[in-house]
Structure formats: C-alpha cells, structure tokens
C-alpha cells in the first residue's frame, strides 16, 4: 500500500512542528471560547433539574470527557497503526502524545461520574454499572500503554511495541464495551435510573453540545502542544530544530 503524496508532508517533522505552532493558538482560542460559553450556558442559563437539582450540572464535564476518552483511544490506535505499517515516526509521536491526554480525560470522566454518583445513587462507585466498568478498563488500557512505553529505553523499539498494543487494544474496545453492557442487561443489579425525568430540554442540551465541541477543540489543542514537545525531544539533534532555536534566540 502506498500513501498519497500529500500525506508525506505530514511525515516531515519541521512541517508538522510549524503547522502545530500555527494552528495551536487558534484551536486553543476556539476551545476557550466554546468552553466558556458552554459553562455559562450550563451553570447559569440552564434550569436546575427537577429531580436532581443542581448536581446534574456536572454533566457538562462528565459527558464530554467520557466522549473524548473514547475518541482519543481510537485516534491513538489509528496513529499507532500508521506508524507501525509505514514506519512513520511522526505517527508514533502522535500516539505517544495522545496517551496521557486520553488517560486524563478518562480519569476526569471517572472522577466526575463518581462525584455525581454520590448525590444521585448514594455511592461513589458502583461495581455493577457497565459504563463505570468500561471506563475503568479503558483507563487500564491507557495506563498499560504508557507503562509499556516507559519500560523501554529505546524509543524506536518502544514506538513499535506499544503500537502493537494500541492496535490490539482498539480491537478490544468495542468488545469490552458490548460485553459489559450485555452482561448488565441480564444481571439486574439494584435498579438505577439515570436522568429518567423529563426528556432533556433545549436549555440543558445546547450547552452540552457546545461543551462537547469545546472539549474536542481543547483535546486537539493539548495534542498539538504535546506533539510539539514530543517532536523536539525526538529531533533533539536535528539541524532544522537547532536552526529554529538559533533563530528565535
């Protein structure tokens, strides 16, 4: 399989470094604006839930981060696969940069879910909830990926070995997802209804959607800045980087 020609530019570290430098601030700016708008909409404009009162507002963090946590893993796996197959160091760099970000969002989803669980379900943690289990296992996947990388001295080797894990992991993500859900649908634990009240009103939904888009931009922004750092680390000895640093001095 051959990669299209335009794609090759993304294999060039200086190009991507510069691109990330240009796009980063814009994307970051958009993220800040959207998140600010979403927060305002969610905390101020949206009415309190008639069942849960104000505690439901944590949804504006919880749902976007849960969504990002899953999306990030898929991107990680795709990047890792590209890196492994076409020996593209930059793709590996992308995968590496995503891992800690994805893990953080996963953790955020877990933490906000747990905090939310206390007022709603009366407990921080419910072992029998499929989403919680799924999210926890996803966190393990991220941590495993990061631990595996950390255990290698040689970056090249770390790239390729962890790429294999990333790809195997993404194959498993849907399997885990569905197995956890099916399993619960049969074992009826203590019955918990989530946000069963009236269907979500527009006042509540709109800020949520804005937040989701905002979180996505935020993710992209974080990714670009980590990627820049990763490139610097990898191209430590490269001429273009030294010239760049020399220039800016």
């Amino acid at each position, binding site marked *: 399989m051959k990669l299209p020609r335009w794609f090759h530019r993304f294999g060039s570290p200086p190009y991507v470094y510069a691109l990330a430098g240009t796009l980063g601030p814009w994307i970051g700016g958009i993220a800040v604006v959207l998140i600010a708008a979403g927060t305002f909409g969610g905390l101020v404009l949206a009415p309190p839930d008639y069942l849960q009162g104000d505690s439901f507002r944590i949804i504006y963090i919880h749902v976007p981060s849960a969504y990002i946590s899953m999306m990030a893993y898929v991107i990680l796996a795709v990047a890792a696969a590209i890196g*492994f197959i076409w020996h593209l160091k930059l793709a590996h760099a992308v995968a590496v940069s995503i891992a800690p970000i994805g893990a953080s969002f996963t953790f955020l989803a877990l933490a906000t879910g747990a905090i939310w669980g206390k007022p709603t379900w009366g407990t921080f943690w419910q072992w029998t909830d499929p989403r919680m289990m799924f999210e926890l296992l996803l966190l*393990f996947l991220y941590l495993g990926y990061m631990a595996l990388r950390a255990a290698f001295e040689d970056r090249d*080797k770390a790239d390729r070995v962890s790429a294999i894990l990333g790809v195997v992991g993404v194959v498993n993500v849907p399997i885990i997802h569905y197995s956890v859900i099916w399993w619960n649908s049969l074992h009826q634990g203590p019955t918990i209804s989530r946000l069963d009240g009236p269907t979500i009103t527009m006042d509540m939904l709109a800020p949520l959607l804005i937040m989701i888009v905002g979180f996505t931009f935020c993710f992209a922004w974080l990714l670009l800045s980590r990627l820049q750092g990763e490139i610097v680390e990898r191209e430590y000895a490269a001429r273009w980087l030294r010239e760049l640093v020399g220039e800016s001095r």
Partner: protein
Amino acid sequence: MVDIFLTIMGRDLKLAYRRWSEFANPLLFFVIVASLFPLALSPGQALLQSIGTGVLWVAALLSSLLALEGLFRGDFEDGSMEQILLSPAPFGTVVIAKIAAHWIVSGIPLIVLVPVVALSFQLPGEALATLAAALLLATPTLSVLSAIGAALTVSLKSGGSIIGLLILPLCSPMLIFGTRATDMAANGEPVAAPLYLLAALAVFAISLGPLAVAAALRVGLE
C-alpha cells in the same frame, strides 16, 4: 508447516514435562485461590453458591495469566529465539505451535480441574458441563491474549511483568461471558448465546493474535 508445528510443539511439551513443577504452579495457584476464598469468607452455603462462579472464573483467569508469563522469556534469554527467527521455519507457525503447546499444558488441566473444584462450591451439576465447555472456549483466547502480553514485554528483559496491566482489560470479556454462561446454566436457562460469543472471540483471537505476537517478538529481538 505441519512438521514445524509438531516439532516446536513437541519440544515445548518435552520442556514442560522436564520442568513439570513449574507448570504445575499455576494450577496449584488456582486450587489454592479457590480454596482460600471460602476460608477467608467463611460464608454460609447460600453465599458460597452465589459467589462460587465468580471466584472460579477469576481464579482460572489469573492462573492462565500466570502460566503464560514466561512463554517466550526462556527462548529469548538463551538465544533460541534468534535461532528460530533466523531459521527457514515460518515464524507465524512457530508462534502458534508455542501457544498451542502451552495451552495443552496449562489450559487443558484447568478445564478438567475447575469443574472438580466447582463441586466443592456447591455448584449444581447442570452447570458443571457448561463450565467446562465455557472454559474450553475461553482458555484458548486467554492463551493468545497472554501470549501477546508476554511477547510485548519479553524484549524488556528486565522482566516487564506489566503484563497483567496490559492484558487484563482485554481478558474481561471472557470473564464476563464465562461467568454468565455458568450462572445461566445454574439457573437452568439456555446458555447458547454466551457460548457462541466465547467461540467467536476464540476464532477471532486465534486467527489474528499470532500475527501480533510474531510482530512483537520480531521487534523485541532487534
């Protein structure tokens, strides 16, 4: 191909026989875990029955994870893996043969042993056959998954036993379906669905897993 498969499998079985105590270890581990639990819980009959399936499956899962940890390490450290990789034998076949040998040594005894232990957990008789069948379908997948973990970490030399962390999330479906099948059988419900799922996962794992293992081993040797 078949020759190579048999050669490699024969060698690994012979080695396992020579060092049987090492391979008996995970089984013993299983028996001990399964018997310590009732001791630590001192539950009533009913409780024991209700947690029995779960305990058995977790113990079986752990024991098969433990068994595979060293699958490739020995061959790495004495240089055998280099020789095998450089030989004309197709590497994928080699990998499958090694996993198969290991499954024979660690998986099959488990399939026999677990239902026996299950008896002492007051599991109803109908569930035992299902339990064995589910194990028969789940252990190959577990073997492949742990082989992936072992291959990923073998090149760490320093003993990357992070294996557990890597593989565990991947194993949870087997745990879930296996437990479900057993529980359903105990309740007299039809168990075809979870068993089919286990079989599907096994086919999937066996057909694609060895590729991942071979790739990881190759990188590890560099």
